[in-house]
């Protein structure tokens, strides 16, 4: 009789866990953005860049990055611990060939809990806007999103995984990345 009670209690716990697990997974912050289908935009663009690198492709790429080459070595360091890199970039022949509505679907996702805006820049001179978002979990950056819109180009970058901002700093001189004073530029969300 007692055994039966314990078994029932175990069954209840298992059932509760089974019900809660998907809910917990749903509630956990997800740094992977669902990038919209920009096919229509790609047709209008003079240059379209679509990069989709999941963890398996990143580890494959890591095997082909030459540790003796400074650029490759820097890239290898950066992709260590990453789970994905997703880039969509479109360049147009004319100014303002895209609308803000095209980016809204991405911005909405970045308004979700977990994401915080690190940098928000608007240049009146060049009409370039760059927003940098970061997702932090346990004091570790687990997601980075960059939305850059210029008059003739619009780019979305989503990096998923343990991002070491220091390593990004180390890219200086390799890919033309300057030392970014992130704390100084940080703006409240």
């Amino acid at each position: 009789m007692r055994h039966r009670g314990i078994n029932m209690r175990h069954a209840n716990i298992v059932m509760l866990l089974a019900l809660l697990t998907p809910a917990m997974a749903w509630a956990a912050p997800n740094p992977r953005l669902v990038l919209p289908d920009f096919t229509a935009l790609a047709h209008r663009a003079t240059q379209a860049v679509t990069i989709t690198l999941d963890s398996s492709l990143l580890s494959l790429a890591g095997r082909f990055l030459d540790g003796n080459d400074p650029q490759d070595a820097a890239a290898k360091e950066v992709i260590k611990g990453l789970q994905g890199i997703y880039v969509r970039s479109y360049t147009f022949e004319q100014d303002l060939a895209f609308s803000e509505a095209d980016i809204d679907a991405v911005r909405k996702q970045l308004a979700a809990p977990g994401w915080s805006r690190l940098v928000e820049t608007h240049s009146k001179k060049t009409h370039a806007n760059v927003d940098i978002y970061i997702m932090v979990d346990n004091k570790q950056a687990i997601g980075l999103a960059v939305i850059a819109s210029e008059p003739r180009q619009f780019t979305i970058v989503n990096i998923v995984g343990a991002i070491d901002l220091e390593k990004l700093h180390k890219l200086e001189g390799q890919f033309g990345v300057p030392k970014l004073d992130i704390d100084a530029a940080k703006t409240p969300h």
Partner: protein
Amino acid sequence: MSQDLESQLRTALRPIAPSAALEKKLIASVTEKPAFAPQTGRFLRRGARSRAGWLSIGAAACLLIAVGMQHRLRERDERANGLEARRQVVEALRMTSQKLDLAYEIVKSQSTALDDGNPGA
């Protein structure tokens, strides 16, 4: 003169019955033949076995070559995919750094403008 030669040739080329000794020899050689037959069979069997051996060696070699070629093709595909992934990683990081650079430039120009507008600060 020519008739003489002709008659001489005819005499020389006339059919002659074989001698008894030759006949015996021939009969003996014919009767000995069956004794060689089993040896020929063995030889044929050995030949067949050797052919089968060569065939299996050939099949094994073909299999090895096929496996080797498949491995090489897979390696080549993996290399091509790896190099493409590497190119994409470099391109993605280049674009990311370009946009971070752009943000940095905007922030820098804005802070410079602020400093210029407020020299006392």
